[in-house]
């Protein structure tokens, strides 16, 4: 039972309540840094680190933090993790850090992270909070990567910097410009919602068939 519970918290973030496709949170980094797959992965990993780290701390200290100052405490914790991620990326992968630029410090303002602290981590035991954070972060990473991969393939003819097409391939430059982010996100959201709609319809049909069978 316990195991199922953690698994449930994990999988809901990846698929059913995916922060981008279902909750439409964290749009700012989502649209800004997904012009290549490697940037998307770096942003996803940084967010993963910040989200899991802050959820762990917030959940561990949830009984010590007075609720009047909880938001300030969450922000201090999140900002600390963001600063750590910022300097680590600058030291280890200066090139990627340069590309992401201002969007790393802006992880502090990602509503996905503060939202999880307020809605989940500050109310549930540490283990569940960490599972929830991992699920949400993986969901965010998957969403970033799917956008980044599509945009890089169409806009730059490459994936992770490896050229995929011959020189004859006409690049869709718009895909790596800001409008490309909106277009790709729109198409992916359309697909996600269509899939959900079809699934609900199917479940309804099954329920109807069962009822008439009885």
């Amino acid at each position, binding site marked *: 039972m316990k195991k199922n519970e953690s698994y449930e918290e994990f999988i809901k973030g990846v698929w059913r309540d995916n922060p981008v496709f279902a909750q439409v949170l964290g749009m700012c980094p989502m649209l800004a840094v997904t012009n290549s797959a490697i940037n998307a992965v770096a942003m996803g990993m940084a967010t993963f680190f910040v989200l899991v780290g802050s959820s762990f701390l917030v959940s561990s200290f949830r009984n010590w933090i007075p609720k009047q*100052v909880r938001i300030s405490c969450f922000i*201090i914790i999140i900002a600390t993790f963001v600063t750590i991620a910022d300097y680590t990326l600058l*030291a280890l992968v200066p090139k990627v850090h*340069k590309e992401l630029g201002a969007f790393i410090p802006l992880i502090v303002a990602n509503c996905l992270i503060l939202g999880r602290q307020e809605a989940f981590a500050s109310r549930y035991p540490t283990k569940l909070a960490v599972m929830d954070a991992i699920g949400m972060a993986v969901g965010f990473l998957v969403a970033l990567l799917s956008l980044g991969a599509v945009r890089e393939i169409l*806009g730059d003819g490459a994936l992770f910097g490896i050229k995929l097409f011959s020189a004859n391939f006409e690049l869709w430059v718009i895909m790596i*410009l800001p409008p490309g982010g909106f277009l790709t996100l729109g198409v992916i959201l359309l697909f996600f919602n269509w899939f959900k709609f079809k699934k609900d319809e199917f479940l309804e049909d099954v329920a109807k068939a069962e009822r008439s069978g009885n």
Partner: protein
Amino acid sequence: MNAPVKQESASPSSMRLVMTLAIAGLISGIAIIGIYESTLPTITANKARELREAVFKVLPGVSQMQALVYRNGELVAVDEPGKDEPVIYGGYDESREFLGYAVPAAGPGFQDTIAILYGYEPREKLVVGMEVLESRETPGLGDKIYKDAVWVAGFSALSIEPEIIAVKKGTKSNPNEIDAITGATISSKAVVRIINEAHAAWAAQLPPPGSEPAIRETDTASTEAGQ
């Protein structure tokens, strides 16, 4: 953190709120100082290596470099240029022969400041290389100022006197003209303008060709950094 207190309905004292935030801030501060101190050497080394690689790229054949600043009417070699002090880099080959200057320059581009480094050969008055260090030009268009190999190669022997002129692609006819990039005219003109302005600013301060400061014996700090 503070001693555990049961979640009570009465609001906690202001003292407790202040203490909680103070302690959280203190721990956060210590963590940030820790990460700053532990990554600083790597970051400094990375920057030094990047600069060194860029200098070697814009001045072909260079194997040693030193920082030069203009003080009291002459160019002198320094280890640590002062803050906000304009600095250029002298490049020397293996036999300690002076080859040229690598000049950092910056100016407004299409989106934001473009920072470049260009190699300057004072005897022939030629630009011998150009490298973009920092730019936020539009991906796919303006970023061709460092992604377009033909454009970058155009700076490998470009006369700087009286000044560089960016002309429409395919119409280059003089040694001081360079073909602008189609679709990135503003960015390419910006690069040319940055070089012209930096050259105008430095021209009076450079010693006559042949009397450049020699590379110093003890100059290992700036050449070995980041190896």
